């Protein structure tokens, strides 16, 4: 058995991983989802907003992070629209605005009464990373004079009551890396004292636990699992919930590979001795 493991062709590993991911996506497995406090904090921070508030939402990711970021963006946008909140959306990743725009428009179609420019606006992308965050503090329309489709930002009714960060009771940040949650906390939350929640990739989630513990972040969604917990809180069964089977089996397989890899190595050492 150990000899077989030592000679294992990595293409077998690829094949098994492929089948374990594909299987549950084609034939979903229903697994119970336990909601943990970071996800609950995210949900409750939005839920506690007065109906009709205007909030800032920054979607900082690109197509590489679709499975993790899109479900949480969609659910957060839906929760905010249901609360009649108005959203000013920005993107700080150059490959993100097209993707974010299509998600927002697709989700907004579920609410026929909600209008672009009145209930939400997509200000699109602006290069400059942290510098953009700081300039937004001087005025949102200063940093984004035009929206994603090139219309003047100040011409939208939603922008009538929006000046700078002081106009928002909450910042919702969905981010897959740099610039993202860390920069928003350091440049905006700490400086302008804007309340903030974040949705991040699973691999980067541990980085934000100190901010969560210090209440700089009121809630945190970590990867697809965090998005699935959020969907459960909202009573939705979206792509994150449906992806939990595939992700669970993928994780089990990686854990198994770590154990088997070490067993195979010990076998080689013994044979060498």
């Amino acid at each position: 058995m150990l000899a077989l493991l030592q000679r294992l062709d990595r293409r077998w590993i690829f094949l098994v991983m492929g089948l374990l991911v594909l299987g549950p996506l084609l034939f979903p497995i229903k697994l119970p989802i336990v909601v943990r406090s970071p996800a609950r904090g995210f949900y409750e921070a939005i839920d506690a907003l007065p109906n009709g508030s205007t909030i800032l939402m920054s979607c900082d990711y690109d197509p590489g992070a679709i499975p993790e970021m899109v479900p949480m963006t969609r659910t957060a946008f839906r929760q905010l629209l249901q609360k009649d909140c108005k959203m000013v959306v920005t993107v700080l990743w150059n490959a993100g605005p097209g993707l974010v725009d299509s998600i927002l428009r697709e989700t907004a179609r579920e609410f026929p009464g909600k209008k672009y420019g009145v209930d939400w606006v997509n200000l699109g992308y602006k290069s400059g990373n942290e510098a953009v965050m700081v300039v937004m503090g001087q005025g949102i329309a200063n940093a984004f004079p035009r929206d994603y489709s090139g219309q003047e930002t100040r011409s939208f009714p939603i922008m009538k009551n929006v000046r700078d960060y002081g106009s928002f009771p909450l910042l919702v940040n969905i981010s897959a890396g740099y610039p993202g949650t860390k920069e928003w906390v350091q440049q905006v939350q700490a400086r302008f004292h804007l309340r903030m929640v974040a949705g991040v990739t699973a691999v980067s989630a541990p980085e934000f636990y100190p901010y969560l513990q210090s209440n700089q972040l009121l809630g945190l969604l970590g990867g697809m699992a965090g998005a699935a917990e959020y969907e459960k809180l909202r009573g939705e069964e979206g792509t994150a919930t449906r992806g939990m089977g595939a992700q669970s089996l993928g994780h089990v397989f990686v854990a198994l590979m770590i154990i088997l890899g070490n067993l195979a190595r010990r076998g080689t050492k013994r044979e060498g001795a």
Partner: protein
Amino acid sequence: MKRELPLFLTAVIGIFMILSFFIPHHLVSVPADFMQATAIVLVACGYVLGGANALKLNSQAIAARQPGWIYKVVLVVSLLITLGVGFVDGMRRQGAFLETGSASDWIYSQIYSPMQSTLFALLAFFIASAAFRAFRIRTVEAGFLAVAALIVMLGRVPIGDVATGFLPEWLRLGTIQEWIMNVPQNAAKRAILIGAALGVMATGLRVILGIERSYLSGEE
């Protein structure tokens, strides 16, 4: 002068920007705001320079038939086509070249987006293979790391709760992983964050004071 002027500008602007945090007077805040807005324009100019540089370097590599030059042809052709399509779309749609239905939008949603998603999806396969070949437990510390990694990996997905659902709450994988994330992981992360912040402050001061000059044409 070639060296002194950039060092002088860095020192003056650096000190001025630090002061702007502490002096809420319009004589300081207005120029500071202007400089921050200028930074955005400079970054945007950087994209143009970056694109021109990529075009120049790759064209030279193609002309010299360097190894892998055929891939550089793909890069240059894709870059030129995307730029060209963007210009034509921009002229036809009065600047709104990213609108749904435009050719640029098609390139983004039908070529760029699926390609990038595919590239990231491959990670799952390479991680599984790397876990088998590279995650070697050679010391006690590595053993602790491996055990923590396995608990967190399984505890963060629903199957961890299902597999240990028969145990008391405090022994379930989900609960243990939450403790690992909230206590030891958080403590280590805080230490790293504080250390990194001190390092950034020290480097910033070294740059402002002209001690650190590596940003000037690689000078030490």
